[in-house]
């Protein structure tokens, strides 16, 4: 089969932990948009959801930091944070080790991805799942791009990782949905949490909807840190989804700064029309 859904969304822990403190005029339409995203996902009838996330030192540390890692476990536990703090109960989320193994094997033909048979989900995956699969019953294949411990993988490589993921999805009979999740501009977990560069976010998403590889990968890390904060490094997850959808374009469903969520609340989808087989290797 092929990729049946591709989208991106924000994942700030405040979306659950501090939802009651958000301006309802922004929060309610944002959450309604996420509900629409869930409906689009369900309509695609996926057998599994691959989540390209920006892990936050829940599983990987600088003693052995993979640029890319894909989960290969039967199941996963999350959240690793205090459930009362995140306001998401701790639970077991199903995986699919066999499907993971086949996807990883295919990805490794193009990208040197690590794999992990143990993985604890942090807010970066649990928050999106709580909106997209609120019963947590859809098998998940987690993928992590190191966005925290420099040196970070170049943006061009993140795009290539996405292309490899797409080829892998096309190579298996299962129907795969793909969600990329990361903040755009933000200064998370610092005294500046809530600072958001809305113009930068809109410009980035405009490039994303055009799936303009050159524009998406033109940011230097120095520019991103200056203009979009340390959280801006997480654009790698969105760039990867664009790579998985090379040749397709997307649409932004919602993007507004919600400071108590630490980022713009956003949701966007790619309109999948292009078969990866037609894309030259």
């Amino acid at each position, binding site marked *: 089969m092929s990729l049946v859904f591709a989208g991106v969304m924000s994942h700030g822990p405040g979306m659950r*932990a501090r939802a009651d403190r958000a301006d309802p005029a922004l929060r309610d339409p944002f959450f309604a948009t996420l509900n629409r995203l869930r409906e689009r996902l369900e309509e695609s009838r996926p057998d599994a959801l691959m989540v390209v996330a920006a892990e936050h030192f829940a599983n990987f540390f600088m*003693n052995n930091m993979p640029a890319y890692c894909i989960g290969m476990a039967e199941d996963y536990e999350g959240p690793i944070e205090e459930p009362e703090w995140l306001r998401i109960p701790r639970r077991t989320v199903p995986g699919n080790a066999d499907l993971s193994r086949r996807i990883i094997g295919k990805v490794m033909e193009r990208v040197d991805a690590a794999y992990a048979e143990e993985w604890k989900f942090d807010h970066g995956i649990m928050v999106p799942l709580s909106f997209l699969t609120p019963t947590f019953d859809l098998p998940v294949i987690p993928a992590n791009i190191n966005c925290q411990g420099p040196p970070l993988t170049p943006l061009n490589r993140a795009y290539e990782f996405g292309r490899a993921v797409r080829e892998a999805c096309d190579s298996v009979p299962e129907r795969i949905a793909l969600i990329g999740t990361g903040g755009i501009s933000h200064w*998370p*977990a610092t005294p500046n949490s809530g600072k958001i560069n809305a113009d930068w976010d809109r410009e980035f998403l405009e490039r994303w909807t055009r799936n303009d590889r050159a524009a998406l990968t033109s940011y230097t890390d120095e520019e991103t840190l200056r203009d979009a904060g340390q959280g801006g490094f997480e654009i790698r997850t969105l760039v990867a989804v664009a790579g998985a959808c090379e040749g397709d374009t997307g649409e932004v469903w919602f993007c507004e700064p919600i400071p108590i969520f630490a980022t713009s609340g956003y949701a966007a989808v790619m309109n999948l029309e292009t078969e990866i087989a037609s894309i030259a290797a």
Partner: protein
Amino acid sequence: MSLYSLQKLLYDLNRDARVQDEFLSEREDLLARYRLNEEEAAAVRACDVGMLYILGVNGQILMHFAAWRGLVWDEYIQAMKDALAEHGQVRGGIYGAVDGGEGGAV
């Protein structure tokens, strides 16, 4: 190496209940296993989230640690703001404050 070790200790604390138990019952033994300088050891010993921020602990590690120690969100943000006012800018890592730590969503 010191900031690395400091963050490694907090990383281990964040994800391993056995390390958390040791932190609560045999804190000095735990601290001795990591290559911390005196300032770092004192900050961990006191669960001084503000000082840990100044020492350069990555915010994603620190936020998680603060939640485990029971700090609510506003207390966590305020601890960092207070430490910035007392000690000045963050000394390492990539989670330094901008705009003097002003603003934010508290």
